[in-house]
């Protein structure tokens, strides 16, 4: 393994919260976020040999997004579509232990969940994962001009959803 490359345990310990946050914003609920993180860590562990030191969190964000997109393509479903099976999933069943459950956070997550995948994914990668448009284009496999357009439209949709919910500012 190249010098300066952390072990996968160190990645989980030092960047697990970031990984979980991206997974949660993509998946829209804790249960699916946990599955995403589990699969992502497995791929991280297996892919460390090929990792070249650089933006570690960018690399992790691309992996968790790829896992998410693989599942979306496979299941052709959106997170909100998975809810009816279990009424208990309408809200996260086990609120995070030490997250301050602000109304704003809940409203934003709800609004994000209403966005179609094509818009939610680039917005999350930009505003949660802090990836560049070029990295987002690479990850999602769409042209950079499309990424730009989807981020903009996604943010407008998000703002409209929040305004409809009575949220007008941070």
């Amino acid at each position, binding site marked *: 393994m190249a010098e300066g490359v952390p072990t996968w*345990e160190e990645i989980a310990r030092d960047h697990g*919260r970031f990984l979980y946050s991206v997974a949660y914003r993509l998946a829209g609920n804790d249960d699916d*976020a946990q*599955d995403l993180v589990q699969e992502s860590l497995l791929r991280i*562990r*297996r892919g460390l040999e090929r990792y070249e030191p650089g933006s570690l969190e960018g690399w992790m964000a691309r992996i968790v997004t790829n896992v998410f997109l693989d599942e979306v393509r496979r299941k052709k479903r959106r997170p909100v579509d998975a809810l009816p099976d279990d009424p208990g999933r309408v809200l996260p069943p086990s609120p995070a232990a030490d997250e301050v459950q602000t109304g704003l956070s809940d409203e934003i997550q709800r609004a994000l969940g209403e966005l179609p995948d094509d818009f939610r994914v680039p917005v999350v990668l930009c*505003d949660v994962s802090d990836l560049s*448009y070029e990295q987002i284009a690479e990850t999602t496999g769409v042209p950079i001009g499309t990424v730009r357009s989807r981020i903009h439209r996604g943010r*407008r949709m998000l703002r409209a959803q929040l305004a409809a919910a009575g949220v007008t500012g941070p």
Partner: protein
Amino acid sequence: MTDAHEFLATDMLSAYLDGELTDTERAEVEARLAESPEWRAELDEVRGARTMLRSVAQRDAPEGFWDAVLAGVVAADDSPVDAEETAAPVVSLDGKRRGPGRWIATAFAAAAAVALAVIIVPSRDSVRPDVAAVVVQHGAQGSDHGDPIGTITPVGPLAGFRR
């Protein structure tokens, strides 16, 4: 209106906020912003969404998640895997939830099987067949039949990962 900027797309506004424009594009956007209240309003709109999303706190996993998932990853990688399998999802996000995280459920089931074996089998050597070994070996598989993760064997949590 027939000004020089009329063909600019407003989606440049988000790219403007994100620092993703060239110097020329940025100058064009700023010129358009100076003359168009609609563009300024749309800039405020996307800036608000961007600010709110970036200000949301990171999400913490539920208590106990990391210990279980780290043990699960180790156990899953203990089984032989060929190169092609690494590209395929190990877990699936199907609509039917079977509890908090399949690997966690499996890891908990395995741990419970170990505890049960300790409690109900007074002496492994005095019993034939070796009930404790059978329980430990098959406890995880029984919890999630047909799932590739069902082959997980009980592995104790890694020390130092409780967050």
